[in-house]
């Protein structure tokens, strides 16, 4: 099925969970300096946030939520600065 991540089309098998998409994005970004800094400071591996079809997805939903054809997923870094 086709799903959009930051408006880019991706193909996933039916039954893919939201957590699978989240893990994919986290893995791709894990070595970025800002992510590494935050990981070192907080001990948290995961600081990126996600929305699904305009709605913020809480972390406790990741495992249970199944993505569907045409879903629109966006990821967000915790921007800080001026």
């Amino acid at each position: 099925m086709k799903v959009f991540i930051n408006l880019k089309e991706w193909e996933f098998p039916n039954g893919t969970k939201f957590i699978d998409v989240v893990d994919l994005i986290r893995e791709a970004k894990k070595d970025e300096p800002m992510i590494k800094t935050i990981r070192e400071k907080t001990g948290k591996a995961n600081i990126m946030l996600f929305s699904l079809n305009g709605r913020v997805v809480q972390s406790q939903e990741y495992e249970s939520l199944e993505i569907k054809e045409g879903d629109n997923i966006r990821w967000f870094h915790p921007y800080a600065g001026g």
Partner: protein
Amino acid sequence: MKSIWNKILKVDLTARTCKTEQMPDEVYQKFLGGAGMNAYILWHECPRGTTTFDPANRLTFAPGPMQGLKQSGAAKWTAGAISPSINMNADSAATASFGIEIKEAGYDAIVVHGRSDKPVYLLVDDEKTDIKDAADLWGKNAYEAEDGIQAAEGEKFECVTIGQAGELGVRYANIQSRKKSFVGRCGLGAVMGSKMLKGIAVRGSQSVEVDDPKEVDKLNKEINKRLAELDKLNDEWLQFKRVGTAAATELFAPQGNLPIKNYQLADFPSGVKNFHASNYAKQLNAKPWPCQYCTIQCHNNCEVKEGPYAYKGKGPEYESFAMVGFNTMVDDVKAVAYACELANLYSMDTISLGVVIAWAMECYEKGVITKKDTYGLDLSWGNAEAMVEMVRKIGTRADGLGYLLGEGTRIASERLGGGSEDWAVQMKGQEIAAHNWRAQYISALNYCTGVASGPNHERGNSQHIWVGHIRLPEWGIDEVENEERWSWNKAADRNAKFHDYCNVINSACHCKFMEFRGYTLTDLCNTINAATGMGWSLEDLRRCGDRITQLQKLLNIRYGWKKEHDFKYPKRFMEPVQEGPAAGKVPVGLEDAIMDYYKERGWDEEGRPTAAKLKEVGLEDFIE
């Protein structure tokens, strides 16, 4: 078209008249409002030869189609004129509620020209206008001036005022509102002072009609909820409402993005330690100070109760404490916050101020100036007391060095000589901001090619692709590799898109921090459409940004820009630091990158928009 009035207020301070002028839909469809409106007004009303302190210079205050919507980030407005630092068109943005009030008074812009023969302030009360005597406010600081106007007219009036630095023509004087928001860059406060205009007070009671009120309401609720939820899910030290932009220190330092010791060093351990988010919040007792409708609430109100730097007021943003703190090596949080608030009172841009003082410190270190020049102050790096006193000397235009520093580093270094031009970190007359070109080369390209207000990190923001991980997937900026920060790969395309992005946001008059924290270009487009009824696509939005950028470029040319100006970057751009994450990194190839950018923009080899490009963006009537 809706969410606009099709009406602007024209104020002639020489003739002491105020009149309204109708504006056709076409102006807004092409330029939206805000920064776009400023460019349009300058194009039509300030011909070649108009200079910054010329009474004919137009100082425009303009909200955009977002004002009137109860959406997070919709408290923004823009001011613009021919700037005294870069001597070209410039615009700058601020918040508080001044722009909302202009809209509620029934105007899409207030355009001031002429010069009063004595100090005045402008009063706008819905349809009623008056130019009032300000003799008893002249000479007061910007906050006292606002208090004075509100005492006379009522607290419901939203005001903008200038302090002594604006009156006395400091080339980077700013304009303030509500003691919390500032039209910072490019010296528009000095333009206001040159017109003997101490302040403007506006009150309005009207509601502008939007095209689809139900859709506007739905979008407001959905977007405001999403932004609030995203902020709440962040760790405390990353929540704007707790620490403002101070979280930037810990995120920028490991990327080599900080400006340290007039951009000479890679690290400043005591500074980074003291200015990290939790220490900032603790030392300054920072509390949220939100703008109207905002769910993110990045401004903070601070209080230092005791000691030589006791104050209560605005907490410094990242750019302010980076330039006044890191860049001068002053690591005392309270001293830096106090100095920034002093600058606010006098009405001076803290970015330029920090660079200017750092430049002076380097002059002192190298013996180009001595204590004889510095009023007996030991202007060594990190001397907080001397730094604070220099802010006073500049703000009051004290004879000698204080006056010279008020001219900015370009003029100051030209006059002082002694090789000091080598460490004047400025381009075109404006000081470089607190994003280090060594951390991402695109910053250098941005500074060299900015057209909206000279070298300005906020009129580009392309550095945020790396330092802030900002993406524009709607416009094709999504997959980015970290190593690309030190290459020119896709730099021209990305820089162009970010320039246009800043222009649409500053013309719609929305706060970019929303865009940086979960508000998308799709949201912006949908909101503009629901408010105005224009039915734009994302491509139309991009074209609007491009159009405004092209018009700003035409204005640059009209007011004296030459190709060589884009290549006169600071010598320091090519001086590497020896350690840290950006060790050895300098933007070699910058000249080629600028030429690639010209090509990307549809400009010829001389950096001028071609007739074909102007036609493409609907500016065929703007060819000179």
